[in-house]
Structure formats: C-alpha cells, structure tokens
C-alpha cells in the first residue's frame, strides 16, 4: 500500500465534478420542489388563517350589528310602549272627563227634573190648597159675609179712585161692569152706587152680573182695568204670591 498522488488527485477531482453535477441535477431541483411545497403549505396555512380571521371579523361584525339592531329594537319597543301608555292615559283621562261630563249632564237633567217635579208638586199643592180654601169659604160664605167684603171694598178703593181720577173720560156717566157673588138688593145697590159716586165724584152707570164662583165680594171693571175685591180673587192672589216666593 503506497500513496499514489495521482489517485488522490483524481479522487478530489472526481468529488468536485460530482459535486457540480449533483448540484445541477439533484440538489437544485429537490430544494426547489421542497421549498415550493413549503411555500404552498405556508400560503395555504396563511390563507386559512386569513380566512379564519376574516370569518372571525365577520362574525364579530355581525354580532355587533345584531347588538345594534337589538338596541334599536329595544328603543323602538320602549318608544312604542311609552306612546301606547301615553295614549292609554290620554284615553283614560278623556274617558274620565267624558264620564264626569255625562254625570254632570245627567245630574243637571236630574236636578231640572227634580225642580220641575217640585214645582209641579208645589203648584198642585197650591191648587189643591186654593181649591180646598175656596170650597171651605164657599161652605161658610153667605150674604152677610158677602156684604162685609163689599163694605170693605167700598172703604178701601183708593187705587181705583186714583186711577179713575186720572182717566180723561169725557162721557157723562162712567160705565162700570160689576160682577157680584150674590145678587144685590135695591138698597145695597144704592149704597154701592152712592158710595162709589161720592168717592169718584162722577156719575156712574153700573152693569151688574152675578157669578157665584167669586164666593163673596165683587169684581169691578172700569174701562180696561179689573179690580178684584172677591174672596176667590183674594185666594188666587195669595196662591200666586206663594208660588212666586217659593
């Protein structure tokens, strides 16, 4: 075994030659293919990550939108509820007002009715009372009472006298319509005429009619004016006065 410098040299050259050839036909293509695949894998992973990220973002966005939507929904619901409540309250208050109005109206109607009935009742009462009084007076009435009432009229007839004195009557005799409850005797008529003429200081012409409904006393018509001095008239006057005062 000896060192052969040529063999050694050849082997080194062989190695270098092989190195360069293999670089070309083995290492380079294999490295390229491996790196290409790694690149693809990396890109795929990156794409996947990106897609995932995008998906997450999208999800987040969607959730946010959903949240917003819910908020809007809640707000709208709240508004609607509030409005509905307002409307309800308004309706309620209106209804209450209406009710009050209706009650007031009914009450007013009721009051009016009550008043009317009361008035009617009173009127009826007065009528009955006056009828009762009239009947009572009719029962106790007689010529004497009649004459007493007439005498009173003859004494207290200032109103008539003053009215007559104011009249510008040019006629010779004054026409007087006299309604009496009981027929006058001649004396009585004379007394009445005499007294009236003396009071008025004028000649008078008396037209006598009989009306028993007067109960007692007389009713005198001078011109257009009637002077009632009968008991019926007195009762009517009192009834009227009572009706007015109540």
């Amino acid at each position, binding site marked *: 075994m000896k060192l*052969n410098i040529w*063999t050694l040299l*050849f082997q080194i050259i062989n190695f270098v030659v*092989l190195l360069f050839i293999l670089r070309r036909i*083995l290492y380079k293509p294999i490295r390229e293919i491996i790196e290409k695949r790694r690149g693809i894998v990396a890109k795929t992973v990156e794409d996947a990550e990106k897609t995932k990220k995008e998906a997450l973002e999208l999800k987040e966005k969607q959730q946010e939108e959903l949240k917003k939507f819910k908020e809007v929904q809640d707000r709208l619901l709240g508004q609607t509820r509030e409005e509905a409540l307002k409307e309800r309250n308004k309706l309620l208050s209106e209804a209450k007002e209406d009710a009050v109005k209706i009650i007031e109206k009914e009450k007013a109607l009721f009051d009016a009715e009550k008043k009317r009935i009361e008035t009617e009742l009173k009127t009826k009462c007065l009528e009955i009372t006056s009828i009762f009084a009239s009947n009572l007076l009719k029962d106790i009435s007689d010529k004497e009472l009649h004459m007493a009432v007439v005498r009173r009229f003859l004494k207290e007839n200032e109103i008539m006298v003053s009215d007559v004195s104011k009249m510008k009557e040019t006629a010779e005799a004054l026409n007087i319509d006299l309604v009496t409850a009981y027929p006058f005797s001649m004396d009585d008529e004379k007394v009445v005429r005499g007294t009236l003429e003396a009071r008025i200081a004028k000649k008078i012409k008396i037209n006598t009619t009989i009306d028993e409904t007067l109960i007692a006393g007389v009713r005198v018509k001078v011109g257009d004016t009637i002077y009632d001095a009968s008991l019926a008239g007195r009762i009517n006057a009192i009834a009227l006065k009572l009706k007015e005062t109540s």
Partner: protein
Amino acid sequence: MKIFNVFPETIFSIGPVHITDTVITTWLVMIAIITISYFATRKLSVKPSFFQEIIEAVFEAIEVTIKDILPVEPWLVIPVLGTLWILIGFSNLAGLIPGLKTPTADLNTTFAFALISFSMTHVIGIATQGLKGYLMHYKEPTWLLLPFHLIAEVTRTIALAVRLFGNMLSGDMITIILLGIVGLLVPVPFSLLHIIIALIQAYIFGVLTLVFIAGGIRTKS
C-alpha cells in the same frame, strides 16, 4: 492469486499519470449516481410520487441533522456534505459487486475525502464568521492550547481517512480470506454485515465532518 488482490493496481498509464482501478471504479460509481439522480429528479411535482417521497425524506433527514448540529442555513452545506455522503456510501457498497474493488478501501481515496472535509471545515468557518473570527477559535480557551488545536487539526483528518480506509479494507479482506479458506457462500453473512458497516461508515464520515465544521463555528456563539 492475483484475483484476490484487495490493493489497487494501475490499469493503464498516460505518460506519468497512472490510472488505478480505484479511480475507474469511482467513475463507474459516479456514473451510477448521476444516472439515478437524473432519473430521480426528472418528474418532480408538488404532489410527490412514491419514489420522490423517498428522496425528499432522505434530504429532509439530512436537513434536520444539519440543523441540529450547525447554527447556519442547512442548504449552505447540504451540497458538499450530501455529495460526500452519497459518494462514500455508494463507493463503500461498490465492493459488493463482483469484479469491482471498493474505492474507499484505497487510502488515497479516503485521504482525498478527508482533505475535502478538512478544507470544507475551514472554508465554511471563514465564510460564516470571517478570517479573524474563525482564527480566534484557536486560542480558546487559552493561547496555551494552540499547539494542541493545530495537532488536532492534522490528527483528526488523518484519523478520518484511516478509519474509513481500515473499516472498508478489513471488510474486503475478511471476505477474501474466508473465501480462500472455506469457499463459496460462507462470506455472505459477513457481506451483509459489510453493507451495514458501509452505510454506518459513510454516515460517520459525514457527521464527523459536520461536527468539525460546527466546532469551527460554535466557538464564536
């Protein structure tokens, strides 16, 4: 007994240049490697075929091994180291083919590879950290150890060459001796063992080179 000679012989000479059978066998091995590589890389695609997957697996194993040991980009040393591995591996196995001599059973061959490994260590060391930075690792941990560093540079290179040479030569010799003593078929188990040894030795040669390169770089970091 010419037929059993395990030592290299000069086949022909061109002037002062003697071409031995070692060199011729190496050429044959090279042709085989180039042919296989050529056909292996013809139809590479992103979706690998079964064959392509095997090749890629081999390269990825190389890449991982280098990554574990070297703090530099693996593809910087893969071509040189890969070629070393492939060439030594194929050469070691060449002796199994009848009529061929194992090229690595020739000290000249292993020494040539050891020289390549030696120069690679320094080239890569200088390339990665500069001449000054690379030389600084010789004074680690102290200047006193500088002579030992220098001695180690020489001895480990020689050891690299002799280790491969010794292993291969012994394998061949055992086969031949057994063949001479006992006869046919008996050396077969030893030949099978020799296959394993051949691959292991190729691996060891490459890994040691890797470790030497790493030794030249690591000191800085």
